[in-house]
């Protein structure tokens, strides 16, 4: 009996969650464009609309550079849409015919009706019924929520293959755990969101929150709360590809992302052993622990070692 080898998943780079300056963004993406074996890059500000002008400043140059490097560029929309400027930005983005867009808030769905678009990880696509409903209105690619468990991912990937829709899973980087209307960066410094003075720009790696008995726990990123650990599904890449997951997402972190991309490239091509990749990933991540608990139905912060 011949067994078909599962299709090789594409490698993507998710949008930068942190408030990195335009200069840092340009340098970061230039290196990705030139050196990283990544197929598609999601750009744009997803977390805080106050940061958007800084991000947009660097965007035309970044997009051009990435395209010249052969990367497909997708524009991600804000996860939280409440203020007039957030509503306007979302409506303008989804109306832009020339751009490929990833929608992260239901506000974007209204204007996207009938237009081709992608659905981002903040949109809560947990089941095939929701997937079908969104596809009916023009969605052709969905990134699943970071807390999805393996059996559900498998069913979503199967449905995606059946109806010709891309299914993407985050395989590296801090897990986005929560969003709020309140800015916790500002709060830590006795300020509010409206007079924040962009304190978050100083914390390129997020602001660490440690428990009162000294355990690193969470990272504050403006209105977003991230995990301390890096989600790292290196051991799980083969299983994800076998399920039919079509895209593997790396989230930009303060590590050598080109090296991370090369490791996952090796994993998806089968040229690198998972245990070796995980060991090197741990080395690259230095003091940041790795986790894969969500995938295995365990507490998200845990890292389960693959059974030999």
């Amino acid at each position: 009996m011949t067994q078909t080898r599962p299709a090789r998943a594409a490698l993507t780079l998710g949008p930068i969650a942190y408030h990195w300056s335009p200069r840092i963004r340009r340098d970061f993406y230039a290196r990705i464009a030139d050196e990283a074996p990544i197929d598609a890059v999601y750009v744009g500000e997803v977390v805080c609309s106050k940061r958007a002008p800084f991000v947009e400043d660097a965007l035309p140059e970044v997009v051009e550079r990435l395209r010249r490097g052969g990367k497909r560029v997708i524009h991600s929309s804000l996860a939280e849409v409440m203020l007039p400027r957030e509503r306007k930005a979302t409506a303008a983005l989804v109306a832009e015919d020339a751009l490929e867009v990833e929608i992260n808030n239901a506000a974007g769905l209204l204007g996207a009706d009938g237009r081709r678009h992608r659905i981002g990880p903040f949109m809560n696509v947990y089941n095939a019924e929701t997937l079908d409903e969104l596809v009916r209105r023009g969605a052709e690619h969905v990134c699943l929520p970071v807390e999805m468990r393996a059996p559900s991912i498998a069913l979503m990937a199967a449905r995606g293959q059946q109806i010709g829709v891309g299914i993407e899973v985050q395989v590296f980087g801090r897990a986005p755990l929560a969003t709020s209307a309140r800015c916790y960066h500002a709060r830590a410094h006795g300020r509010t969101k409206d007079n924040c003075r962009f304190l978050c720009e100083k914390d390129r790696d997020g602001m660490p929150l440690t428990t009162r008995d000294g355990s690193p726990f969470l990272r504050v990123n403006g209105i977003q709360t991230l995990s301390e650990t890096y989600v790292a599904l290196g051991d799980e890449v083969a299983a994800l590809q076998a399920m039919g997951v079509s895209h593997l997402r790396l989230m930009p972190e303060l590590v050598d992302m080109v090296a991370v991309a090369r490791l996952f490239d090796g994993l998806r091509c089968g040229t690198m052993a998972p245990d070796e990749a995980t060991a090197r990933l741990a080395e690259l991540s230095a003091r940041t622990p790795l986790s894969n608990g969500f995938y295995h139905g365990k507490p998200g912060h845990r890292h389960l070692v693959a059974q030999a």
Partner: protein
Amino acid sequence: MPFDEPAIAELVCPAGTPAALRTAVDAGADAVYCGFQNETNARNFPGLNFTPEELEASVAYAHDRGAKVLLALNTYPPAGRFALWRDAADTGARLGVDAFIVADIGVAAHIARAHPGKRLHLSVQAAASSPEAIRYYCNEFGVRRVVLPRILTIPEIRKIKREIPCEIETFIFGNHGLMVEGRCSLTNYATGCSTNMDGVCSPAADVEYAREEDGSLSTRLGAFTIDRFGPGDTAGYPTICKGRYLAPARPEGYYAFEEPVSLNLSQLLPELIDAGVNAFKIEGRQRSRSYIRTVVSTFRDAVDDIRAGVLPDMADLLALTEGQKQTQGAFETKKWR
């Protein structure tokens, strides 16, 4: 009845058990909300919620007294488990509930198709915080009421009301969640139980109170210490977004997200009505019957006074949270953000 009159200051009250439902109805609730004994609702706690038989009897009890029953199906079914939500919706329709409170697009689509005459309310768990998001759900699934996230100011609510074709329900009293609901995986990160998929936040089975050597008491959720209290202090229940942590700028430890306060909008009721809010929601399906009786009857009196053009007795309303810190959250000022 697709064109029934919009509700005016409808009082929507929690019912964690059949006994609490009867208490809330007797105390003057216009509507009660409840769920089945499983993960199809966001208060999937041991000892809470209804069997289908209990729901049937409760619907009869409420309807006999002119109160409505709203069934919460407000969690997100993970692929492979959808049938549980579909069956819950079909059972609720058969038992004659007055509306479904939903968050998941797939669940909303199922009810819109299978039970087209039934009212759909969009749960706060759907996090629809703009007219565009709300209109999407109205257009697609015929949603008749949105429960707004607790992050909007009253002027913002007023503006939204002008741009949407459905009723608005807001929380006015009870536990005050800080994160955008339906977008929080903090509990799952610490415990492996998901708020969205399993309907639990800070599950009791993962909570631990540990006495330290120095006499202090640590409250833990899964592997993490959420707070630590001195010998004389009252230890709060460990909820991640109400814990105290250390940050580089706050080495002494602080409430990184919010202090343990509860929401009390009693003083804003007239303004909320004026802004176009159709229904007031009281949180607390996990609360005792005596709590339900006191809170519901106090708000019943207040709403009746306001409807009659009389100022309600603020002392009664403020006394409800006596001894506890309270907040008007985002509703009063955007400085809260």
